[in-house]
């Protein structure tokens, strides 16, 4: 689990997100209830945000400054994209929680990729139809054998990763994925879905 300064950062982002989602003044106590860390962290985070001029605190209510609004917008967007991504495996509420943990570790690049994914998920084409040397994102892997599935995923062939066909061999393809070269048979390649 993250260490203290990270936690503070996470709490700060969470506060901004909550404020960004509701778009109005929020009761301090309700924030403390929603963010499940010790209240002292929340108080510390609020103090920090106030000093950074992201929020205004008035009595028991807080709201975003102009600066804070911009930042909150980004955070909310990131959050939504991640939630979308995790809906593949989770129901909405769980996705929300999972996203809470992960979004703090995500770069803009991944978000861009994931965003593409969530929009295009149903429309992927089999890897076999990808042009030679053209790089594209894996959207899904439809392998019925769960052991083989895990092998592929752990070799870096997983949704959200870029894949590129380097060579067409007699029995399939040699692809470049996660900066490694892997030989894939036609049968398996057909079951990897990529963006068009």
């Amino acid at each position, binding site marked *: 689990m993250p260490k203290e300064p990270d936690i503070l950062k996470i709490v700060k982002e969470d506060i901004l997100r909550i404020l960004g989602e509701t778009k109005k003044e929020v009761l301090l106590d309700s924030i403390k209830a929603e963010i499940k860390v010790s209240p002292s962290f929340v108080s510390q985070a609020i103090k920090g945000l106030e000093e950074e001029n992201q929020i205004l605190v008035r009595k028991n209510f807080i709201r975003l400054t102009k600066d804070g609004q911009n930042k909150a917008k980004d955070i909310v967007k990131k959050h939504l994209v991640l939630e979308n991504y995790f809906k593949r495996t989770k129901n909405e509420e769980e996705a929300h929680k999972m996203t809470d943990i992960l979004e703090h570790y995500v770069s803009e690049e991944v978000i861009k990729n994931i965003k593409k994914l969530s929009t295009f998920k149903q429309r992927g084409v089999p890897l076999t139809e990808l042009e030679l040397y053209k790089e594209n994102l894996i959207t899904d892997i439809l392998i019925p054998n769960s052991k*083989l599935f895990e092998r592929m995923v752990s070799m870096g062939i997983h949704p959200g990763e870029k894949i590129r066909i380097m060579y067409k061999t007699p029995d399939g393809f040699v692809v470049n994925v996660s900066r490694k070269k892997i030989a*894939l048979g036609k049968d398996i390649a057909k079951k990897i879905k990529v963006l068009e």
Partner: protein
Amino acid sequence: MKLKILLVGQPNVGKSSLLNALVGPKVIVSNYPGTTVEITKAKNVFDRTKIEFEDTPGIYSISDRSAEEKVTERALFEENPDGAMIIADSVSLERSLYLAFQVLEAEIPVVIALNFVESAEKRGITIDHKKLGKILGVPVIPINPLTKSGINELVGALLKIKKTKEEVFTVRYDDDIEKAIKKISFQVTKTRLPRRFVALRVLEEDADFYKYLKDEEIIEEAKKGLVDHPRVSEDISITRSGTAAFIAEKITRITSVAEKSKSLEERVDRVLLHRVWGPFLTILTFVAIIGALLFLGSWVQDTLMGFTGSFLSAIHIGGGFIGTALEAGLTGLMAGVSIALPYVFLFYILFTLVEDTGLLSRFVVNLERFLRGLNLPGKAIIPLALGLGCTVPGVRATRILASGKERFYTASLFTAVPCSSRIAIIRGIVGYFGGKLLAASVLVSLIVAFLIFGYLMKKVMRMEKKPVLYELPELPPYRIPSIKNIITKSWIRMKTFVYIVMPFLIIGGIFYTALDTLGVTKAVVGLFSPIMWWLGLPAVAIIPWLFGYLQKDLSAAMLFTVLGTEIAVVLSPLQVYTFGVATTIGIPCIIATGMLLKEFGSKRALALTLVSAVYGLLFAGLVWRTISVF
């Protein structure tokens, strides 16, 4: 104090090189993914603490799928290591993190050695290892086994491995899955492994962990709460890899580097992985290796044979049973030293060279289509090729295959893969007395025999067809191999030959003399005369055929004993051919059967030995009879 540390990592991530850096050059380093199927152990003392390192086979994940994974899994979860050193690949960090998460889930103390930092930097990838360490709560140390940088720090972290109190990172699955994990974990018993981990493995359908459950019914019950996860094990994998990707992204900085127009690797691969040139060059290389061997091997053999010949005649031991027996034993040993040793060693050096450069992994991909005819993966070529040196290490090398069925099937093919001793018969008897053309036709017959036997066994064993390239072979970058590594590795492969086969060559020779003195050899001539009738050979030819099984390298000598040295006068070229085919098809010798016994149990070993011998006789007889009709 003593510590037992496992080295865990993907294939080709530099585990063995790191082990070399830690304890000195005693171990195998290879450039073919999946060469270490057994655990290599090595010790060293640091600061009065003895650390025993165990190098495990390279794996991508712990998913109970291949032989490698099973070996590593056992080492991790059943042998109570003090800690695991995970070797991570800076070039493709997220892959390494997947495996790291699985080890962390088992709550095994972990130190991460970050390898290939420089080659990652060349590609514009910089990793904030301190941040990674903070996130994971374990020490992360950048290393370079070649320059030894970071090694001292790594050892320092290992010495403290059991004392770290930091809270380590664990992958969080969604609440439904976590609930199911919790439910199952209450039923976990009789193990020192963490309950959550066992429950997770159970949910991932790893049957090895069912034994820790009080009641297996809990699995079905727990799955009832997973309506949103019809395929929970896949969802677990996805969450793990997603988390790995997120963390890797977070701590990696990528700056685009101007790529060299076409690297050497790409240029070579363009040819070697070409649809037509690839398979062609692969086969050409193998033919070239065998050709070089026959040429070099015969030259070395002739030199050594003259040497050992004069040695044998110089130390004439004297008559009587003991004298003859000793002489036969020595002859066997000398045959081993002069025929098999140079041939086997040369072969293994050439083969290891192909392997360590990274060429072999390309060849394996190209051979997939040929071996698929036998429902085997391309990498089955490795044991089969090693069998061209000696069947015994070949049988052992079948361990790299995934299932027991694939292993035994591959081992059965040694029936028609001639080892050095069998090739010596083809060259020394058929070639010498019947000419090169006749020797070549024996080799062609062996290929035909191989294909027929392979087809029949495939049907009998009901080998199922798997998707093409089911093993997902990875193609490592090309490397200039170190001569030291090649010699070391060839020697390790030779070891079984030297320590198991060589003593048996002596014993076999002595045993044969004993049987001969007791008159047993003569007695079997009449008993087995129908076999020789079937082959159209003189009845006494049974002796080299049958007793060659005790000591293959003595076959030629036995043939001379029973027929005299003027073979060409006594046997027609067709008879020489039939003898050559009949003596080279089949599990070659008692030592090979012994190895089969060790690997597959007595029932299958004996059955295969018998079936393969009968097949060889049938095949040779049928060919002879068909030819003599015309």
